[in-house]
């Protein structure tokens, strides 16, 4: 029997991150994936990033993840979303060549010596007396000290197109056995989740002259910090914008009884933020015009992905409604849309490291946890993989605070609440949006990465970056610009009606509302012939600009923080009459010393916190 330190079950975006980060610790990793599917495949939108998600990809990148590397290499159209909305909410999104993405993922994984890829279907997982996991596949038997489940939509997966139902986790893929067959100790949530995809259209059957072109943006920075910031690895192509219309929505409304989602065939709960075209037709009966982004799936692939019209209607209805869209009159459908229903685990049974509370050593990450999106999956994969590794080498766990990262926001949201629909990150989920930005992801993640104690090229770069950042922050505070400085003439291009009335520091100058902080800092550094990394310049300029607002918002949270550091006597709580039995059990186990720690304990009820907090007031 082959033995591994960590066995990762599932070769999707979560599994990839878990395997690669584990390997960076020098551990022996197995990545077990369904035969016949390339690893890191993108069955839904062929894109990586987006509002809130771009931040996750950059957080991952600074922690040593691989998603950014792969997205850059397979990127065929780059965009900065919310460009006009302010720095904090700007996010990068990359359309990927999904074929190439998977090829790059395969190559990158193959290049890592201590990752063994096993292409077999898992039949059973059991825990041995010594606390290890024995995994039975169609062809073999493996032993892992830790196991990470990143099985996506494959648990008890069922596909729907019209009345046709097939078992499977994805188009032309078989599903894996349900979780209770795999692992009888673990309960899935009684409710199943549902997601769907649109029909894929042949790229030569589209009349592009009727669509709005969205070319790739040269200014969008690559995700991976070690890549040349704006270098493109492959040729760039455009996305196209089309619109739905009354005819199309009418066709869908006329076929209500044929829709598995509306005739009762599908029981699973879909995400409200990811509605199928049927949802749009029936929930918003007065609205007929919706955006449809037509996205290329790859340079060498014939398929285009029409984002916004996922559907599980019968094939002939899909054909009808697609062809009613302007520009798609002659569209040829290559793959029909379908909905997939699958089992999800109850994430409130996981702790902050994504380890199952009742089965130490077993971790869950990705869509199986009820999240949607490759980025969310990858973020969890990295957390689970890192923590499995840290636990094996006896180091303290990696727990990202929700005040410092979107990954932290996501994990806390997942483990503290039972969701009734798939979870997706939005910037709205963060209370600290001005600070959790793309531009300062290295600053935010470096302290965590440094704790891993690894010595890679990435670590060297990050350390250097932080050094430059700190120096430039200090320069900004100390360097004064006098009101008659030559330098100001260079800035007047920005705005000619404002003048300085006295000498101020660069920091204060960057806060002037009439200046763009980034170009201002660039001009100043040019003037003094100082040379800094352009990413550092950008991040410092934005930090200075937001500083006052962040401090203000921090002050609001001070009350909360004060409460968090409040000392408490857990022995007293453990016998309190006002606290539920389960909470007391958990308190006795974790022995929290502060309110903050108490709050972090999984499953502590709000009522318990209220009782304790009330005592403090």
């Amino acid at each position, binding site marked *: 029997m082959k033995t591994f330190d960590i066995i990762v079950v599932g070769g999707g975006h979560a599994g990839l991150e878990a395997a690669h980060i584990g390997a960076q610790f020098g551990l022996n990793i197995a990545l077990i994936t369904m035969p016949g599917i390339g690893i890191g495949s993108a069955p839904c*939108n062929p894109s990586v990033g987006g*509002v*809130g998600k771009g931040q996750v990809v950059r957080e991952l990148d600074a922690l040593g993840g691989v998603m950014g590397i792969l997205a850059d290499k397979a990127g065929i159209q780059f965009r900065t*979303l*919310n460009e*006009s*909305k*302010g*720095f*904090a*909410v700007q996010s990068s999104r990359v359309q990927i060549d999904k074929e190439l993405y998977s090829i790059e993922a395969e190559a990158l994984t193959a290049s890592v010596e201590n990752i063994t890829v096993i292409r077999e279907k898992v039949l059973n997982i059991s825990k041995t007396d010594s606390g290890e996991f024995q995994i039975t596949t169609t062809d073999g038997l493996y032993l892992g000290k830790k196991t990470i489940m990143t099985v996506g939509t494959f648990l008890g997966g069922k596909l729907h197109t019209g009345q046709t139902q097939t078992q499977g986790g994805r188009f032309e893929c078989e599903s894996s056995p349900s979780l209770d067959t795999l692992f009888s100790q673990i309960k899935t949530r009684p409710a199943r989740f549902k997601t769907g995809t649109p029909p894929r259209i042949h790229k030569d059957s589209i009349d592009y002259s009727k669509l709005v072109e969205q070319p790739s943006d040269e200014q969008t920075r690559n995700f991976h910090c070690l890549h040349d910031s704006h270098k493109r690895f492959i040729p760039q192509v455009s996305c196209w914008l089309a619109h739905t219309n009354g005819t199309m929505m009418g066709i869908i409304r006329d076929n209500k009884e044929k829709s598995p989602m509306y005739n009762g065939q599908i029981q699973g709960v879909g*995400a*409200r*933020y*990811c*509605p199928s075209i049927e949802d*749009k037709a029936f*929930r*918003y009966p007065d*609205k007929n015009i*919706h*955006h449809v*982004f037509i996205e290329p799936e790859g340079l060498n692939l014939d398929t285009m992905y029409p*984002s*916004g019209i*996922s559907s599980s209607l019968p094939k002939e209805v899909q054909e009808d409604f697609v062809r009613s869209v302007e520009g798609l009159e002659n569209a040829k459908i290559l793959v029909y849309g379908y909905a997939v229903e699958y089992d999800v685990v109850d994430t409130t049974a996981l702790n902050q490291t994504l380890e199952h509370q009742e089965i130490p050593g077993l971790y869950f990450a990705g869509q199986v946890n009820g999240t949607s999106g490759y980025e969310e999956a990858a973020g969890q994969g990295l957390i689970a993989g890192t923590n499995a590794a840290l636990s094996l080498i006896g180091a303290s766990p990696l727990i990202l605070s929700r005040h410092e990262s979107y990954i932290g926001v996501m994990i806390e949201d997942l483990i503290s609440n039972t969701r009734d629909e798939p979870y997706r990150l*939005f*910037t*709205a*989920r*963060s*209370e600290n*949006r*001005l600070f959790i930005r793309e531009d300062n992801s290295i600053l935010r993640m470096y302290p965590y990465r440094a704790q891993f104690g690894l010595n890679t090229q990435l670590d060297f770069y990050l350390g250097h970056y932080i050094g430059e950042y700190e120096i430039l922050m200090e320069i900004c505070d100390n360097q004064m610009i006098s009101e008659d400085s030559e330098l100001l003439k260079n800035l007047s291009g920005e705005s000619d009606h404002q003048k300085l009335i006295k000498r101020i520091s660069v920091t204060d100058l960057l806060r002037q*509302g009439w200046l763009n902080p980034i170009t201002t800092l660039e001009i100043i550094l040019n003037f003094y012939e100082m040379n800094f990394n352009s990413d550092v310049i950008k991040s410092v300029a934005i930090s200075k600009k*937001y500083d006052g*607002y*962040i401090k*203000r*918002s921090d002050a*609001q949270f001070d009350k909360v923080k004060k409460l968090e550091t409040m000392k408490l006597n857990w022995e007293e709580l453990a016998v*309190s*009459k*006002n606290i539920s039995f389960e909470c007391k059990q958990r308190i006795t186990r974790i022995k929290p010393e502060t309110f903050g720690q108490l709050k972090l304990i999984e499953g502590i009820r709000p009522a318990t916190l209220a*009782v304790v907090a*009330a*005592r403090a007031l």
Partner: protein
Amino acid sequence: MKFLDSDDVIIACSTGMTSNAALAVIRISGFKDLSFFSGFFSKNLAPIEPRKVYYTNLLDGETHLDDLCLTYFKGPHSYNGENTLELSIHGNLLHVERVLNLFTRNGLCRLASPGEFTYRGLRNKKLNLSQVEGLDLFLNAESVFALGQGLSLLNGDLQENYHKLYELFLRHKSALELSIDFLDDVGEETAQGYFKESLLGLAKSVSALAKRVLPQSQSLIEPDIVLVGLPNSGKSSLFNFLLSQDRAIVSSIAGTTRDYLAEKIQFDGVNYRLIDTAGVRETKDQIESQGVARSLSRLKNAFFRILLINPFETDDEAFAELLKFDYDLIYFSHSDVAGFEEKKTLFVDRFCRVASGQNLNILSLDEKFIHNILKLHINKKYLSLTSGNPILLDRHKSLILQLETAIRSYQDLAENESDIAIIGSELNTLGHCISELIGIISPDQVLDSIFSNFCIGK
């Protein structure tokens, strides 16, 4: 509040302990079940049904203490959500104390702290904070209006207003989030429109609430009618005359001090406190000068101020001090003394120029007539102040005023700042203000609001 976390069985006499009465109601709350009372009553309580009245004897060992009626309220269907027993006993104060002692002497029950029954209701979510405040207002109301507002708070009416405010805030916050997280879905124009429209709605609702915050409304909770004047200006005489006409039935104002005399009088359903201040004049007497200072401070928060003037005696310096305040009414006394009209005219000429700008209601009637006129003026003022349904509670008033200021500066920012992340951060600050009034708004609720109003998604 020490009792925040206590689960003791508590007892109190809910009908007050100030005088003997026919009945007194004793309330006991927080016991596990009725076996708690075994031995105290001649009747076996085990089979009794909640919310029904039973007649029984109260026993202290072998001794029969009283015949009484009791009612059992089983939690959570009781006032505060706990098991509660109410005893209607005879209301002799000595007896009430004896009964309380019976239940507390072995540490079985603890005397409840003031407000503790209600606090438990709050803890058990039978009431919200506004309702508790309403109850307090209701129980201590000095006017029909305050009674009304107390009841309205208790019924959750004001809370409903706040809920509307909450909805509007939620709408606006979701509009902001929409334009960040879902711009691709809805487009810039829709997002902008929704943002502006929702902000307008929110601001309108805040200013409607702010209109109900009057600076004088504190004086409406405990309205004082204050008589001011130099010594010998006829204050005491007017004070006594008014009392003889309208003394309130309930009067429990503690002691008389050198500072001022106070008694309750009732006009048209409002209990006013009539205050006769110490005569104001420059004095070297330490105690008296303190009295003067306190008189003036009563004046500051008074609902209705009457300045009494004896035109035959003047003390320019002291009088100037009095004219620093506005008066609702100026009354010239000693109108029955010969030469009054002449003196009065002189006085008005000399001093009321100083008091220019004041809305002078000058009266010089005989005491017999002043009563009705005064009543008229006071009622008129009370009605005009309460006509806009002003909010009486300080906590609410100050939060609403804070909110009004915050929303104004937020509107400015929204107008002038192009960085929506900054606007969003400031909106959170505004949200802290709102959440103190109405409860915390979670990101999930914001997203729910977006999804219920917009078609979002790929």
